[in-house]
């Protein structure tokens, strides 16, 4: 990359301080890893359970985000209805809400004494403090990431190709599957990757709504928090694992967004 527009040096200096601010703690953490015990630490049954559960629930939450989020983005980007702005603000609320509050809200809805929880109770289904609850908590906080990025992509893509497709005789569903979705596929992917990353890191809502039961609801962030009390070395080792997974996710997002930019240009 060549820099054609000159940036003042003092801006570069501040930017460098910002980069150090982000990187220093991560580097510091790697210096605390007990490498001789590393493999043993991350392969204990509790750690393996937590990692497996985290990946499983995050994938399920991502799938839920796609199933619910794609239609939500389409409605927000392509239709106008009274109160659309309010709806958009509410949908994006989990993005700024402290996750603990999300957990309390989820309990109020699906908990044993909750709004829908009692109905489920009658049917013999208990959601709170189950693996399902973990998925719901993760999806709740991750959904806005997908909706936000996809709605933006849909607006940028515009409706011109869709209009052409309609005049060629394609029904609205055909237009959706054959024109709209292929055009915004990169945004769906990057939105899904972001949602996955958010789900993977979810802590507060999960702890509040799902609890911390090994193999059932104790995801990797919960395990790390718990180990910190009893076995700080294990906590640091697991934290490093989560950093590596997150790095992979970020790398994937950058790649897909690069693809998006290319396909738009």
């Amino acid at each position, binding site marked *: 990359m060549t820099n054609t527009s000159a940036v003042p040096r003092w801006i570069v200096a501040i930017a460098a301080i910002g980069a150090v601010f982000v990187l220093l703690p991560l580097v510091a953490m790697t210096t605390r890893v007990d490498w001789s015990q590393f493999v043993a630490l991350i392969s204990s049954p509790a750690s393996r359970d937590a990692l497996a559960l985290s990946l499983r629930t995050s994938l399920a939450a991502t799938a839920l985000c796609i199933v619910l989020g794609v239609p939500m983005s389409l409605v927000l980007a392509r239709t106008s209805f009274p109160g659309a702005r309010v709806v958009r603000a509410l949908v994006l609320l989990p993005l700024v809400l402290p996750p603990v509050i999300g957990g309390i809200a989820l309990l109020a809805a699906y908990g044993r004494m909750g709004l829908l929880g009692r109905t489920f109770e009658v049917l013999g289904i208990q959601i709170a403090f189950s693996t399902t609850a973990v998925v719901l908590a993760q999806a709740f906080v991750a959904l806005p990431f997908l909706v936000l990025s996809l709605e933006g992509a849909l607006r940028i893509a515009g409706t*011109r*190709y869709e*209009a*052409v*497709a*309609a*005049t*060629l*005789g*394609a*029904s*609205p569903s*055909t*237009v959706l599957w*054959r*024109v709209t979705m*292929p*055009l915004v596929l990169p945004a769906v992917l990057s939105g899904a990757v972001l949602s996955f990353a958010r789900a993977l890191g979810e802590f507060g809502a999960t702890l509040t709504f799902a609890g911390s039961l090994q193999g059932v609801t104790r995801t990797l962030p919960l395990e790390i928090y718990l180990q910190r009390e009893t076995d700080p070395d294990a906590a640091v080792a697991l934290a490093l694992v989560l950093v590596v997974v997150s790095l992979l996710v970020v790398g994937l997002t950058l790649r897909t967004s690069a693809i998006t930019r290319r*396909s738009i240009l």
Partner: protein
Amino acid sequence: MTGLTFQATVEARRFDLALEVPEGTTLAVLGPNGAGKSTLLELVAGLLRPDSGAADWQGTAFFGPDGWLPPHRRGVALLAQEALLFPHLSVLENVAFGPRSAGDSRAASRATAQRWLDEVEAGDLAAKRPSELSGGQAQRVAIARALAADPALLLLDEPLAALDIAVTPTLRRMLRRVLAGRTAIIVTHEVLDALTLADRVVVLGHGGVVEQGDTREVLERPRHPFTAELAGLNLLLGRAVVGGLDTPVGTVAAATGLAVGTRAGAALRPSAITVHASEPRARAGVDVMRIEVRDLEPRGDAIRVRTDDLFADITPAQAAALDLVPGSAAWFAFATEDVSVYAL
């Protein structure tokens, strides 16, 4: 009648227009930007809902008091200035899109697509991606895609305007071939497009239809200064007198064959006018008028000398020799045989 009948208003765009397109004919819609040309096409295609009005194609209501037909049920294909080929599909898949949407099998729609690609002489592009095409090639493919959808009515929105000038003649000829016998509306600001492609023409001004009729009739014998300007003609309006036409700039001597007092127009090509710095010697069959020059406008290899009533195209060398400036008077001369006089 068979064909399209259309009447609609869109208040937000100050659009209020009524027109008809008989089946099997092509209508050219000429007019300046903002006159509502694109709005007309959007309304017919179903991409915009009118505030009021009704449109009917062969007994099927597109919109009206009884409801609104969505675009994909209208059988109206729209060809825009930009090709807008679907970037994620190959050229062949783009052209096959219409037949596929109509329910044809994959194989049948591909066969149809290949046939239309061959028809527009783009058969060898079938496997390419839209990003690999030149502007002219893309527009060819877009034409094939529109025709492959087997539209009853074809809408063209300045289909040649965005193309390199080198490829427009071939594409214009191809359009003439594929439009023959079809019902189509072509929006353009190119008089040549109208003359080549359309049977009838509607000229829109900012207030609605300025005039309409047979393409040649309208463009060669304009009845409105605006149409004359579009057609690149001078139009002098006046009343028939003995031996000619009385106009604001003087009497045009011509054998009009019109009853004295009849309102008439005189059309005259700007290149048929010569401009003189001093009064030329009077000759039979030549009209001379002394008019004040308003401005001089370079137009490619000619200079257009404008007055309030006439404009003449002269060469740069002549312009230099005449040494004209805005405000100075000049003598404009033309042979009466170059003037076409007709009743309005």
